[in-house]
């Protein structure tokens, strides 16, 4: 096979298509713990590839890639959670997270033919790059995915919450010169937009137009934490561990992590039985309405949460209210915390999917909303129809009254 062979995504090739094979899933861990999102990504990769290998009669692998120092013990756990292969770069200089070094090592691993030959000897001769690569959409993975995909010269879709692999026929003015073109085994990457009401499907596609012909692999994405379920860990699952000796450039060691401090958040949803959250419904009088919410929360001994749009500080509120309540640490949803209190009260929250994902495991849900058509109605046990300005004072008064009854009794 000539060196410049390129897969055109046509039907005729079978083994040739394996120039790009497998899904590489980039693991994250901190302070000796694998992050839950890593296992969630492995679970989704496992489900996708069990189906994929059956559909395409192939034997492509779910490859977990893990970088760090003294991390060999993680490998077994990753296999139990669905990895066929664990590529482990264990090195003292990988103890800290440094974007430059991590980007280079992940890229080295992605391009390494020797690793590829160990993963699956049958595809190794043609191997150029992974077919897909997954990262976590968090403070680590968002940036690492961005820089790795520049290094690998391919495309990235961020903050994904649904993945489908499909054979597609796409016509694109620039990429395919306006001609209908087959793209096999394409990863459809679904991203919810900022409002939480729209889904944008993003594809990473080769350019087939002759003047700009280019192959774009791996098809990369970052995955929102808390979206996918990990598989049930199976201690009997077998897999292979490949140790990789990273090449680290001296110059990159000039970047130093001077300190690493774990921060205790001022917001703690775990210790409270109840959470009262508010959303854009406060907009008519943000300061006054947030005060109402805090009164209700006080009566219920509840922590206060917010919906995502509130954290963007677009509503006019006083500095002290804004810096206490309109902060990312309070966001409930896929972009914030996933909680399951005994009581969840949603005040002026319409119920975008991304918010629902954060609160749907609550035991009992009360919504206060003047619009009976809001999606939150489908997610609550009691829907109190009314404006928060009118309803909350009545609730607070009633709660106080019942409190007195209890004390008197």
């Amino acid at each position, binding site marked *: 096979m000539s060196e410049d062979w390129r897969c055109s995504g046509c039907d005729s090739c079978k083994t040739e298509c394996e120039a790009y094979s497998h899904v590489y899933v980039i693991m994250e861990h901190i302070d000796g713990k694998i*992050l*839950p999102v890593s296992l969630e990504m492995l679970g989704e990769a496992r489900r996708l590839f069990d189906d994929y290998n059956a559909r395409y009669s192939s034997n492509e692998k779910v490859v977990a890639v893990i970088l760090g120092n003294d991390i060999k013990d993680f490998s077994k756990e990753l296999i139990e959670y669905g990895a066929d292969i664990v590529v482990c770069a264990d090195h003292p200089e990988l103890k*800290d997270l440094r*974007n430059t070094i991590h980007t280079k090592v992940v890229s080295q691993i992605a391009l390494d033919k020797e690793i590829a030959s160990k993963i699956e000897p049958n595809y190794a001769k043609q191997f150029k790059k992974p077919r897909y690569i997954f990262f976590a959409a*968090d*403070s*680590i993975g*968002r*940036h690492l995915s*961005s*820089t790795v*995909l*520049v*290094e690998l010269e391919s495309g990235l879709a961020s903050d994904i919450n649904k993945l489908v692999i499909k054979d597609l026929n*796409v016509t*694109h*003015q620039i*990429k395919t010169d306006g001609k209908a073109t087959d793209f096999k085994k394409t990863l*459809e990457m679904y991203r919810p937009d*900022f409002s*939480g009401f*729209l889904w944008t*499907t*993003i*594809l*990473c596609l080769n350019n087939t137009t002759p003047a700009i012909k*280019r192959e774009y692999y791996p098809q990369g994405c970052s995955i929102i934490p808390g979206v996918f379920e990990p598989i049930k860990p199976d201690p009997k699952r077998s897999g292979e561990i490949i140790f990789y000796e990273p090449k680290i450039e001296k110059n990159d060691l*000039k*970047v*130093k992590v001077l*300190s*690493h401090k*774990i*921060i*205790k*958040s001022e917001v703690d949803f775990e210790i409270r039985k*109840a959470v009262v959250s508010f959303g854009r419904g406060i907009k008519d009088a943000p300061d006054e309405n947030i005060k109402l919410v805090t009164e209700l929360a006080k009566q219920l001994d509840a922590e206060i949460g917010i919906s995502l749009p509130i954290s963007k*500080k677009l*509503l*006019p509120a006083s500095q002290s209210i804004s810096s206490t309540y309109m902060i*990312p640490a309070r966001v409930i949803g896929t972009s914030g915390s*996933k909680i399951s209190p005994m*009581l969840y009260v949603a005040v002026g929250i319409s119920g*975008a999917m991304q918010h629902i994902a954060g609160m749907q495991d609550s*035991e*009992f849900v*009360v919504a*206060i909303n003047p619009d009976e058509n809001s999606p939150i109605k*489908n*997610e609550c*046990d*009691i*829907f*109190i*129809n*009314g*404006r928060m300005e*009118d309803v909350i004072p009545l*609730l607070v008064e009633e709660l106080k009254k*019942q409190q007195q009854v209890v004390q008197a009794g």
Partner: protein
Amino acid sequence: MEPLNLAVIVKLEPDFSEGNVSYKPDGTLNRNETKNTLGPHSGIAAKAAFYAKVKYDAKISVCSMGPPLAELALEQAQQTCDADVLHLYSDRIFAGADTLATAETLRTGITDKMEGKMDIVFSGHRASDGETGQTGPQTAWKLGFTFLGNVISYDVNLEKRTVVAKCLLTLNGVPNVVEEIEAPLPVFISIDPSYKSNYTTVSQRIAFEKYQKEAYERAKNYKQYLKVYNIDELGVDKTLVGLAGSPTIVYQVERIPKGKATRQAEVLDGSNPEHIRKAVAKMKEALSAMVIK
């Protein structure tokens, strides 16, 4: 000691603030009726650059890729950071670019069209209207600069030519972490939304006021500082920008299907005292229930 040479990349975005934003009945953004503004995260990046102007007398250039309308973002950024130079990279061919192609355009502008070598380039944490924070790190990697993300504060050592930055890591399932990272210049800093500038000395506060006044005056005549480059003037490789240089495309946009009702809500009337009593009783009951999870 050489003065610091800084660049900020900014973006024009829909203005999501109340009164300026317009939503369609189905809850999605009505782009035609919504005004545009400097993206809030871009604004924080400009603030962070201004900190270096006040503290280290840095020179600041601001650039953006966008339609001619994006001048507005540059004007607003200048008002925030007292920029000395404004660049707009604007060409129909750039339209539809994904983050990789956008990063190539910005890299070319920063490397080839800005005066001198950059010490620090700033970007916002993300855009509010879709792009999810990739453009910053991708531009950084193309520039070959050390990338520092989620930066909540920073200081520069002018003698050693290093930066020390505090970075906030927000991770699911574990407590947040703040790391202090030291890196030699040049660096690319992506600013966390919780970034704050601290002006601690009297001389800093005086400088702050002086430059703020200057910024206000400059922004009134921002066109004097503005250079607009089309694709030929920028001299960028045409196969690496716009749609031709974008690996990803938006394939389709659809409404997220409503999930099936997971609970059967009892609807209560918020103005009926009897209903309020019932709601409170139910809430109390929920809180006192023994739950075995």
